[in-house]
């Protein structure tokens, strides 16, 4: 087996192996150390051709034995009564229980624990990326644009809270499940949106984060099948991500949807996304927000070009969204769609009304949408002014360049 193949196994299996180790040894840090030991052992043994038939179970079993060794060493050093009890517990959990079903359940436990509502959204995202997706602390730090030291501290405190506050290692039951699942999906979507349009920095996108989010949604869809909101979210992300190659120039400049070369889109991914949208909308019950958003993305994905997109239906779907999950951001998107059906003047009225209600205080895309509408209405002075506000509101370099380009085109 080549190092690349082994790397892929680790990538696919490490999260699940860790999830089970945490349950078996009852401690996040000990489980992480034990998994590292197991991976190191695998790196020594596997290249010689003796790759186990079930690498996941192998990593768990070796990891558990290494955890026991670690606890034994602690006892030797400190003679702790508690550690002894810990070892008894470890030995009591039998070897035979590492089945695939148990591993799936453990993975869900891990995801729900990392996305526990007693953590801030930022901590939920960081813990999920580190523990479930297996990113290093340094990689998570880069995702948040904070120092590695600061991120390591934040993760350490979060893991301490799990232990000290008694956050259960469980999939929530009955009544609690739905709101908690919504929280998990929100975390996944946060990871994705940061990958789709970064908050700040030099690069428009962070494809690695988008990929992790899609991987997580696929995992949840496999572990909790038949849920419309999960399929909807997965479809939404696949359809957005499919446009990636068309969304920027080789030099890293933004290419707007209306200017994109649609042959660059990933049509295999679009086909998968379209199928999922249908599945999501077919699940009985009220339409789910992610599924409706995915339906909008599907209309864009199927349109031959920007002008011949089914704008009336898109505007209608935004009206559905306004009913089932109203937010200022949905109102803004609705106004943008209305501008393609009833013209920019009508859309500007909607945005003025939205602004008058004070809904979008710090939302940085508001001046950008307003600027575009003003530009199309030929109100050039006001448009230039709005592009300047838009530029001041963003910390993302490609967006700033785009606003500057527009301002220049308007003779500013």
């Amino acid at each position, binding site marked *: 087996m080549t190092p690349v193949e082994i790397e892929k196994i680790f990538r696919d299996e490490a999260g699940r192996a860790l999830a089970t180790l945490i349950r078996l040894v009852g401690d996040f840090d000990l489980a992480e150390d034990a998994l590292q030991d197991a991976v190191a052992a695998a790196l020594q043994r596997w290249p010689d051709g003796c790759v186990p038939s079930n690498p996941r179970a192998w990593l768990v079993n070796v990891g558990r034995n290494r955890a026991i060794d670690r606890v034994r060493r602690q006892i030797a050093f400190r003679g702790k009564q*508690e550690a002894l009890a810990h070892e008894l517990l470890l030995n009591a959990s039998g070897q035979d229980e590492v089945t695939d079903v148990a591993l799936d359940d453990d993975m869900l436990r891990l995801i729900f624990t990392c996305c526990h509502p007693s953590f801030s959204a930022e901590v939920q995202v960081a813990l999920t990326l580190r523990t479930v997706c297996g990113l290093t602390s340094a990689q998570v730090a880069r995702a948040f644009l904070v120092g590695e030291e600061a991120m390591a501290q934040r993760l350490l405190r979060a893991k301490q809270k799990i232990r*000290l*506050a*008694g*956050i*259960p290692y*469980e999939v929530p039951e009955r009544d*609690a499940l739905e709101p908690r699942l919504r929280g998990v999906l929100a975390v996944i979507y946060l990871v994705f949106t940061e990958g789709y349009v970064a908050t700040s920095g030099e690069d428009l996108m962070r494809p690695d984060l988008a990929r992790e989010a899609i991987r997580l949604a696929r995992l949840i869809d496999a572990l909790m099948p038949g849920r419309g909101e999960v399929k909807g979210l997965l479809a939404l992300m696949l359809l957005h991500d499919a446009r990636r190659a068309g969304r920027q120039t080789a030099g890293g400049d933004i290419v707007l949807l209306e200017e994109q070369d649609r042959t660059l889109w990933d049509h295999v991914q679009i086909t998968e996304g379209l199928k999922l949208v249908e599945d999501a909308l077919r699940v009985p019950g009220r339409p789910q927000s992610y599924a409706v958003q995915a339906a909008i993305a599907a209309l864009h994905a199927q349109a031959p070009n920007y002008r011949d997109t089914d704008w009336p239906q898109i505007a209608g779907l935004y009206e559905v969204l306004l009913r089932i999950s109203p937010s200022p951001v949905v109102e803004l998107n609705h106004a943008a769609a209305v501008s393609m059906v009833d013209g920019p003047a009508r859309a500007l009225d909607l945005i003025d009304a939205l602004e008058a209600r004070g809904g979008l205080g710090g939302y940085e895309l508001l001046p950008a949408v307003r600027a575009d509408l003003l530009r199309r209405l030929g109100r050039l002075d006001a448009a230039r002014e709005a592009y300047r506000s838009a530029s001041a509101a963003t910390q993302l370099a490609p967006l700033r360049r785009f606003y500057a380009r527009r301002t220049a085109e308007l003779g500013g």
Partner: protein
Amino acid sequence: MQYLLLIYRNEAELGKMGAAERQQMMTDYGAFTQSIVQSGHFKAGDGLQPTTTATTVRVRDGKMLTTDGPFAETREQLGGYYLVEAKDLDTALGIAARIPGARTGSIEVRPVMIYD
């Protein structure tokens, strides 16, 4: 595990409460306390006199200093607590959400430290 559920609420708002409302609150607290005694979660619990009755003590360089009032001026003030036994944080949060004061104030849930 044991958790301390600290009940914070705005004293000024509380002062404006009518007699009937006050009576209702007492009844609600009575029923809630009864329910967690019966379920076996209750370890202890008390209401506190308002922060106007508080005195804060510090010892600096061996000398005792007292100040009139609470340790910190905040929008909501500590008004009472429950000490509960619960198997995990989710259970403790569920109990906290049922405290009558959660509807108008806030409940801080803190695990009790275990020394080993």
